[in-house]
């Protein structure tokens, strides 16, 4: 168990946080994504960052509703969140979800909420390069083949390709790229509210197509930066019965594993 203050608790003591950790619905409720939330919280705690969460005051950013076409619901969620964020005077936000990241960063300003928003892979890269996060040299991944899956909302949509790769390089991993990567990276199939529905009729599931590409690299670890990609890639690898050979991890988890050795 990790003790993470909420902004409400800090405010009661007239304190502020350096950064708000926006957990998101997946990070809060999805069992697999919860582990990523804990990994990130552990890293932030270890580097001594004063961070806080909103706890029950956080509601869905509205991304899936907006992309499904439900603008009304998006506006309701967004305006509620902006009220909360502004009430606490939040300036800087970190999140492990690329969809939350994109909506907070690119869409809330038009509704009156402007914050400095960074994705956790960017924060981790910053912490490593500034020396604040020390990678103890266990060499857990030395020479291990890791492939990195660009999420659409961090990669193509927000142009962040290098920070996550720099983190993997700092782990001494042998980074192998998939055929389609960076600007040409293939979607895992979950974006645009697809996460909440079945694929339309076709001849293959998108996540299986992407997982096949990851498997082709021969990597034993697929590194992801998004809770939805995490689910889709895990399911795709399972569909090929490779779940015992190939594992899917978020970058934050890889750092914890590296330092635990």
């Amino acid at each position, binding site marked *: *168990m990790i003790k*993470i203050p909420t902004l409400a608790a800090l405010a009661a003591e007239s304190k502020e946080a350096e950064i708000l950790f926006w*957990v998101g*619905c997946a*990070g*809060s*409720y999805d069992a697999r994504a*919860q582990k990523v*939330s804990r990994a990130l919280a552990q890293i932030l705690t270890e580097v001594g960052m004063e961070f806080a*969460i909103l*706890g*029950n005051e*956080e*509601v*869905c950013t509205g991304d*899936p*509703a907006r*992309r*499904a*076409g*439900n*603008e*009304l*619901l998006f*506006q*309701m969620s967004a*305006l*509620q969140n902006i009220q909360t964020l502004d009430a606490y005077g939040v300036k800087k936000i970190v999140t492990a979800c690329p969809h939350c990241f*994109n*909506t907070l*960063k*690119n*869409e809330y300003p*038009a*509704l009156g909420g402007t914050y400095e928003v960074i994705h956790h892979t960017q924060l981790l890269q910053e912490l490593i390069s500034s020396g604040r996060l020390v990678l103890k040299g266990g060499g857990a991944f030395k020479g291990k083949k890791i492939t990195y899956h660009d999420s*659409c*909302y961090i990669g*193509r*949509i*927000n142009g962040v390709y290098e920070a996550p790769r720099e983190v993997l390089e700092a782990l001494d991993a042998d980074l192998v790229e998939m055929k389609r990567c960076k600007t*040409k990276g*293939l*979607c895992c*199939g979950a*974006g*645009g*509210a*697809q996460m*909440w*529905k*079945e*694929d*339309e*009729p*076709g*001849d*293959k599931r*998108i996540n299986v*197509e*992407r997982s096949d590409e990851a498997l082709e690299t021969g990597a034993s670890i697929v590194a992801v930066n998004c809770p939805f990609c995490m689910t889709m890639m895990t399911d795709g690898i399972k569909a090929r019965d490779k779940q015992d050979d190939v594992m899917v991890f978020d970058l934050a988890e890889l750092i914890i594993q590296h330092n635990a050795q």
Partner: protein
Amino acid sequence: MIQQIVFSLLTLAVFFVAGRQFWHIRNKIFLGKAEPIGGDTGKRWKHVLLVAFGQQKMFSNWIPAFFHLCIYVAFLFTQIELIEILLDGFAGVHRFFAPILGIFYTLIISTIEVLSLLAFVATLVFLVRRNLLQVPRLSKPEMKGWPALDANLILVAEILLITGIFSMNGADVLLQQLDPAHYPDTGRLLISSFTGPALFGALDTQTLVVVERFGWWLHILVVYGFLLYLPFSKHLHILLAFPNTYFASLEPRGAMENMPEVMQEVKVMMGLAPETSGSDTDELPDFGAHDVFALSRLNLLNAYTCTECGRCTAVCPANLTGKKLSPRKVMMDIRDRADEVARTIAASDGKLHPKNYDDGKSLFDYISKEEIHACTTCNACVEACPVLINPLDPILKLRRYEILTQSEGPAEWLPMFNSIENAGSAWAISDPRDQWTTAS
């Protein structure tokens, strides 16, 4: 003299008819909603220079990019020769620029010849790619019929244009020696000084004159044919790519267009804004888009700019895995619907106009719900387009119409909507939101 009159009348007629056709295209684009064009003008010109003029985005796939560049640069340079043809035609002179420009003339025409030869090869390569090689993106279902014919017609026209240039230059090289008074010296043309004698060396003067005139008229007639054909063809991109890149959105790619009308409504609901008087008596407006009138002019400009290359469809995860969605088809459908609407309006004797238009049809007669439901909003199509067309934007507008105006959509989305509305979470889970901090 007769030639001069025929040429002048024909040219004026072609310009008049083509001008009208291009005006119709403009009107079809203006069926869409006017939207403010904000942002940094410098950035917009940079897009025009790099992306349209400089073909920057083509080079993510360098083989077609190289061949396309050959045709494109040849097209640009041939405009100089075209200006001369127009001057010659109107004034009844021959090679107006040759004596004036001297050595530069030789240089310019030789450059055009080299580029034309490259374009000739490139055109043959494209014909082979389209018709023999079964390149996946060029043989999708939406390419059957007219789109395939359209593409081939353009390529054949290019072959004819180049044939015209080499016929007229080749014969000219020989005629310059036979009749220097009428055929001013062009200097040694890089290609025709070889191909002229090789192809036409055996012909007598009279036949050479005919070959030269045949080449000249063939070239200008194909140019005119092209001009008249463009408004009906996917090939409009040679013109519209420029305004299209200029007007392309400068907003962050991840930002969906905000809907201020909905925001106002929600603010009133949440008590963040005062209720506007009379709002409850007003009829509820349509949200999103189900026809061209509710799309933006930029969406329609995008549709008319699309040259159906299919780079978007080739990278679409839904299309790649056999779903019906094809971003290219979405753009083609929008264009076809705008054409249909414009035809119906024109045939209605002034009875129909954009404000009262109703033919019982909509974009949904072209684009199925299944197609728009398959989109993952991954932006691969947006990234792939060499001329900054955004196929995602209209897809999302159609989704908004379906959800907000029709109250339809995939049933599986309802629990997600309900959960966000009632529990503030995309999944209905009753645990406290910070449960994850305590579990291990």
